[in-house]
């Protein structure tokens, strides 16, 4: 890979052309056609230059192939490549008019004409951080967005919620559009350096054109293109990094403390639960310690004496964390891009290679992403273009979340150091195979005592699972996105766009034939190979007209969309050593496959009217038909209206020096959501695949609601945008209110009905918030520049309607007026100092069933009352701040993101605090504070080896989860121009990149980014990475 890269580089170096001098001439005028006298025309990179005369005429002799730069004070610069044509009539636009053009729904708009809420992240800010999955770059950059990167597997997609959470069981994440077409591939297939901008559409007026899919916001990713008539530019980048875990994991007990503590747990049971005398209880504990734990690392019959003290030293003290965690993960990235354009054609080519290792050993993500984009003016009135991208990626990801035995993080938190990695004989010596290799211990050696049967997780060894098994995900992603644009009349354009996208996802899993869960059947291979195909066609007629002060722009759009999944899987067992392909299987275990399709048919209209660039009005309408719902409920209409008033274009403000831009805006619209509900959620069907021996079997799927339909969301947005003091302070403040009704919800049913849930439209939820975004240019001097940015939002979630009084779902109870995310659970009442038992609060209820408002403490968990805790799993305050600075040839940028006000229920910590309820489970050093004698004041109950509820769900394990993270720190040095010239380069930059290198967190032991529900799940942590790299431009 690397070799190929540098071959390309070298060959590009060698391309040289010697060009003859040509005479270029033309007229320079302003946007109204008035000639500009005294404008400067310079051959770029030289001192060769002239000025335009009184009539705007100029004439200059330059070599063919050179670049001309046109400039005039107060107007934006323009450059042209000198090709065949020798006449350039150039129109220059005033600086503030040539302002940012923003990618919006079905097109582009200048920032000024936008009435909705659209935030943009440019490629410069994207490149100041590592975003293996491109949407990670949004974190901390835009207000009103909550992003969670769960776990430490590189290439994992973040959870994104725009403006609160408006859906519960339907898809609540935003719609992703890439270059105009809905994206169904894996977001990790897009290389960050190939992205030109990310637009985040937050309000109704900006998303309503996506109708039934726009309710939860839209993210539009635009990839880079070339520019016509520019010199070809080649840029190369390479970086190498080293990663380690970004935040520390929970601390753990060592073998000796574990053994003594376990003895105490056993003794306590015999003493307090079984009411034996202290002497007998201690004797029983010493007698039964080894048989309870199944192993004997101490080699003596009673490693712990009757006083609870160890009398022997262990033959091993396993550090599972060190065994499993990759403390020096490697990261490498190389990229090349070539872009440029002739008079009628422009192109961009980019190719990028990335390999990144994760927190757990053998975890990695590897990707090659290539993209080619060509746009060309075929004839005067016809333009066409094609954007091709191909990505191939590979990810090895041993289980590192969830409750499977082989989840290596759960393993670290579950297995005490008491259990060895490798097998031992009855003398505690390591056993070898063929006299050299150690044999991994799977914890199921019935006939031994030193190395016997583990009481938990027998038959597995997570380290063995990492090195002997494979979970390999291979993705191939290809997309073809082309358009044909006709200019029908002066003001009338027709554009036909067709996008085809195909993702092939191959999930391969091999369970070793000699060790672990599948050893009994000589290994197992399960493989699925699924195709996901999207076809999207968009026909647009647009009309644009300026009549004096009035300007009008309309679009009529017709869209069809089809998504098809074609799934196939197979599983087989019985493999010879070193064979792990399906055809090596001796007994097939299962096969599966199905094809499902979804379609959407839409008619869309938009009209944008602007008066004197002061008042802007925009209205949109979309009618969608979706194959996901029944014929009666499938059609829906969605709309939005919005307007803005550009105060800074009013005469009474135009003269105020310090105000450069001031705009008020408001919008309202109603949208829908049909995503994340499956293909035919309204059909009551029977599912195949439940065969009984050779007879086909079917089962009825859960109850469905045949009238299920879209969720509907009404969004209101009010905002102000401003720029003051020569654009040194820019910013915006926005308020939103988003009310979602007819939520698609898995309503819990009584278990006795035989159905857990029914998917139906119930209730309404309201999200509202305030968003702030500021950007200030603190200092701008020749050699020193400093920019500071800050954005944050306050978001609130409230249930506004339910069809019944309340629902209880896990540790949340939903009631009107409450948040969807407020924890509802028993309140811990501490530990009884008399007997060391955990207590909870319980309401006093009279015989008539009336709550008196008083509370008492109870030791019966089942009697404990569950209360609203006033604590929510979603943050009340999230945002980010950035620093951008340059000093001479150095530049520095830092991006922090933060989240405050959320709570986390740390079930991992809870399980570590189990107090030896079960044998063979790891503990946390905090256990040393446990109750030991009557009168002890502590919040850690006594150890008790027997079923108890001490660590059952309660506020005891509910923690505040605030954090601030330095997501990206980038320090670069640009080689001075003299040197660059000598080397025949355009740019040479060497940089240091640090990702996640600093994290402040209020609750330690976990990664602060967990899940919206606020539950930990034995997840691996994100990595902090230190990289060094170079950027070259030729």
């Amino acid at each position, binding site marked *: 890979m690397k070799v190929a890269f540098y071959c390309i580089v070298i060959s590009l170096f060698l391309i040289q052309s010697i060009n003859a001098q040509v005479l270029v001439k033309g007229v320079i005028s302003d946007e109204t056609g008035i000639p500009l006298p005294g404008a400067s025309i310079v051959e770029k990179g030289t001192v060769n230059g002239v000025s335009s005369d009184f009539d705007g005429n100029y004439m200059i002799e330059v070599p063919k192939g050179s670049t001309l730069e046109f400039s005039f004070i107060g107007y934006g610069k323009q450059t042209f490549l000198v090709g065949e044509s020798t006449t350039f009539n150039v129109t220059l636009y005033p600086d503030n008019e040539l302002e940012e053009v923003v990618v919006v729904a079905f097109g582009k708009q200048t920032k000024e004409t936008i009435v909705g809420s659209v935030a943009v992240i440019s490629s410069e800010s994207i490149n100041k951080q590592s975003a293996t999955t491109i949407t990670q770059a949004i974190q901390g950059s835009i207000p009103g967005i909550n992003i969670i990167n769960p776990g430490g597997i590189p290439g994992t997609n973040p959870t994104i919620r725009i403006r609160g959470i408006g859906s519960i069981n339907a898809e609540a994440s935003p719609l992703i559009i890439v270059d105009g077409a809905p994206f169904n591939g894996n977001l990790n297939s897009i290389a960050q350096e190939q992205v030109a901008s990310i637009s985040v559409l937050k309000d109704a007026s900006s998303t309503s054109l996506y109708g039934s899919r726009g309710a939860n916001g839209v993210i539009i990713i635009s990839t880079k293109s070339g520019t016509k008539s520019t010199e070809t530019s080649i840029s190369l980048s390479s970086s190498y990094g080293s990663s380690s875990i970004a935040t520390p994991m929970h601390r753990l007990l060592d073998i000796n403390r574990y053994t003594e503590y376990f003895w105490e747990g056993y003794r306590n*049971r015999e003493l307090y*639960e*079984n009411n034996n005398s202290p002497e007998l209880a201690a004797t029983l504990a010493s007698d039964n310690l080894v048989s*309870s734990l*199944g192993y004997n690392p101490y080699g003596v019959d009673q490693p712990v004496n009757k006083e609870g003290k160890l009398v022997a030293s262990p033959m091993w003290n396993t550090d599972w964390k060190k065994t499993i965690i990759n403390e020096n993960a490697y990261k490498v990235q190389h990229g090349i891009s070539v872009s440029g354009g002739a008079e009628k054609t422009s192109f961009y080519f980019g190719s990028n290679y990335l390999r990144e290792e994760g927190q757990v050993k053998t975890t990695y993500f590897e990707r090659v992403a290539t993209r080619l984009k060509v746009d060309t003016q075929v004839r005067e009135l016809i333009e066409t273009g094609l954007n091709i991208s191909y990505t191939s990626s590979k990810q090895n990801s041993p289980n590192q979340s969830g409750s499977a035995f082989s989840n290596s993080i759960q393993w670290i938190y579950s297995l005490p150091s008491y259990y060895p990695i490798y097998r031992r004989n009855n003398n505690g010596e390591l056993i070898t195979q063929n006299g050299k290799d150690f044999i991994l211990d799977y914890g*199921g050696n*019935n006939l031994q005592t030193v190395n016997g*049967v583990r009481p*938990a997780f027998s*038959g597995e060894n997570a380290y063995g699972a990492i090195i002997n098994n494979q979970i390999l995900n291979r993705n191939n992603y290809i997309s073809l996105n082309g358009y044909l644009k*006709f200019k*029908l009349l002066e003001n009338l354009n*027709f554009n036909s766009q067709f996008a085809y996208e195909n993702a092939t996802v191959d999930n391969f899993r091999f369970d070793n034939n000699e060790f672990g*869960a599948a050893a*009994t059947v000589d290994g197992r291979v399960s493989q699925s190979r699924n195709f996901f195909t999207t076809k999207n066609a968009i*026909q647009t*007629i647009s009309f644009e007209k300026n009549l004096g002060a009035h300007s009008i722009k309309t679009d009529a759009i*017709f869209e069809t969309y089809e998504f098809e999944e074609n799934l196939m899987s197979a599983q087989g067992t019985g493999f010879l050593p070193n064979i792990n392909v399906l055809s090596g299987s001796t*007994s097939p275990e299962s096969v599966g496959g199905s094809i*499902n*399709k*979804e*379609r959407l048919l839409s008619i869309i209209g938009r009209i944008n009217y602007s008066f004197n660039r002061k008042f802007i009005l925009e209205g949109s309408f979309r009618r969608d038909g*979706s*194959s996901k719902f029944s*014929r009666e409920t*499938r059609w829906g209409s969605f709309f939005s209206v919005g307007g803005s008033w550009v105060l800074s274009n009013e005469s009474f403000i135009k003269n105020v020096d310090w105000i450069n831009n001031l705009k008020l805006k408001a919008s309202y619209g109603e949208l829908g959501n049909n995503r994340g509900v499956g*293909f*035919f959620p309204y059909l*009551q*069907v*029977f*599912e*195949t695949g*439940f*065969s*009984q*021996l050779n007879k086909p*079997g*079917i*089962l*009825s*799927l859960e109850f469905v609601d045949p009238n299920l339909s879209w969720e509907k969301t009404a969004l209101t947005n009010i905002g102000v945008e401003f720029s003051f003091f020569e654009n040194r302070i820019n910013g915006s403040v926005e308020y939103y209110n988003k009310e979602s009704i007819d939520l698609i919800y898995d309503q*819990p*049913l*009584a*278990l*006795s*009905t*035989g*159905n857990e849930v029914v998917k139906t439209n119930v209730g309404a939820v309201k999200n509202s918030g305030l968003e702030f975004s500021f950007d200030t240019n603190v200092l701008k001097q020749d050699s020193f520049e400093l920019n500071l940015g800050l954005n944050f939002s306050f978001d609130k979630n409230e249930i506004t309607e339910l069809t019944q009084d309340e*629902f209880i779902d896990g540790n949340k109870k939903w009631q009107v007026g409450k948040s969807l995310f407020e924890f509802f659970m028993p309140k811990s009442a501490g530990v009884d100092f008399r007997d060391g038992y955990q207590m909870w609060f319980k309401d006093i209820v009279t015989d008539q069933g009336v709550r008196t408002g008083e509370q008492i403490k109870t030791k019966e*968990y*089942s009697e404990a009352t569950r209360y609203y805790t006033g604590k929510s799993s979603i943050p009340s305050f999230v945002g980010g701040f950035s620093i951008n600075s340059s000093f001479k040839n150095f530049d520095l940028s830092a991006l922090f993101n933060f989240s405050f006000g959320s709570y986390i229920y740390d079930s991992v910590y809870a399980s570590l605090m189990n107090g030896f309820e*079960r*044998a063979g489970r790891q503990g946390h050093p905090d256990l040393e504070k446990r109750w030991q004698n009557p009168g002890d004041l502590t919040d850690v109950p006594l150890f008790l080896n*027997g*079923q108890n*509820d001490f660590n*059952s769900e309660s506020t005891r394990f509910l923690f505040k989860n605030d954090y601030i993270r330095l997501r990206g720190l980038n320090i670069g040095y640009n080689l001075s121009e003299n040197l660059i010239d000598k080397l025949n380069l355009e740019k040479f930059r060497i940089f240091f990149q640090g990702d996640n290198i600093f994290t402040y967190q209020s609750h330690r032991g976990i990664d602060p980014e967990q899940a919206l529900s606020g539950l930990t799940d034995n997840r691996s942590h994100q990595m902090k990475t230190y990289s060094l790299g170079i950027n070259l431009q030729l």
Partner: protein
Amino acid sequence: MKKSLIKFYLFIVIILLSCDKDYLEEPKPTGTINSDAVFKSKESAEALISGILRLSRISYEKTDSAGLYSIFFARVVKGNDLILGNGWYLFDYENDNREPTYRRTTFTWEFPFTIINQINIFIDGVNNSEYLLDSEKQPLLGQAFALRAFYYFQLAMEFQHTFSFDPSLPAPPIYKEPANEGKAMSSLTELYNFILEDLNYAVQFTPETRINKSYVNRSVAFAISARVHQVMGNWQEAASMANNAKQGFEFNASEFKEGFDDMSNSEWIWAMPQQLDQSNYFDIAPHSFTDINSDGYGLAYWNRDFVALFSDTDVRNTFTNQFEGEEETRYNTWASTKFKFAFTSDIPIIRSVEMHLIEAEAKARLGDETEAANLLFELQKNRDVNAIPSGNIGELLIDEILIERRKELYGEMGVEWYDAKRLRLGISRTGNHRIKSAANLEPDDKKFFLKIPQKEIDANYLIDNSVNIDR
């Protein structure tokens, strides 16, 4: 210019027309079948029965809550005969696993109700089918009623005292048809009446023939009835149902040598089969837990007092001493080879020997002690060539039958717990148990049944927290 304009308009119109209304109609589900099709023929309706039987062994939730066998094995470990090492089913072994939020409680409630819902959908569909003939409906309904009675019987046993303790006590809600709203608790009387109603139909209309031993035929319906009547103390009915059930299922003790893993053995009346592509892997009980010589969990050993009940020549004596020559104090001294673990092992649900012993017990209780003793000795002789009749009468005879049940059925359906519960006896731990008296069960101990799951209470508006008061 004009011409080209017209062409483009035509082009757009064509695109618009090409996507007519059928565009949204074309996508249709694959891999699923709609309700009409299922009840169109006997064969397709039978596919739902097959699915329901498969559901009884589907690895439902976790290793200790995976299928019907998990309910049975949780009963087994509560007794005195089996000693469980530290691992799955631990808290059942400690007789301390009945709180509303515990997995055992939720599973033992949810799992039978899930199956009952499928059965109700089946009954509803068959009853309302315009395509099936009445002569086709009856055999189908017979199987369904037998299954529904069987699962309600498990709920009755698990969520209240035994019937004879107090029939007026609250019992799980009764659903006669599919419902999406929770019903109120019933009473034990109502529930047992409902079970008997279903069984009365089942023993009349369930066909004799069946696809294989995992399906319900009339013998299975008789066998379920025999168990229900045995628990209710209806000895006349218990005797005749048991006698009907065992017909055609001859004694064959070879299974004790072969590992209790093959439903073709002539004693097996009803079973859960497995094959490699339909395996419950390590979850199956008792095989995975009692077979210490395989890759299963191999956690379970046997009480030395229980092992001492077997003569050397008894084929059911499958026990081997792991620490030959040492004092039998270790809990893991005696291992059994009764059940052989493999991913393809079949699991017994009901065997004819149990029916034989129900008949013997019923006869004894009805006063026909001669017949009872004959039946008992018939089995003893088959199991042990050196067996001699005990000559016991009265309570001693009944006790001998109960011991014979333990010696025959150990590991299978929780016979100790089942007998101790229905006869309102306790269970005392003896011998080399790991957890001794702390796990004892008093007669009519509340630990013989579970509390009502919190998840049910949270979602059922007719059952509130008071249901667990004093439970």
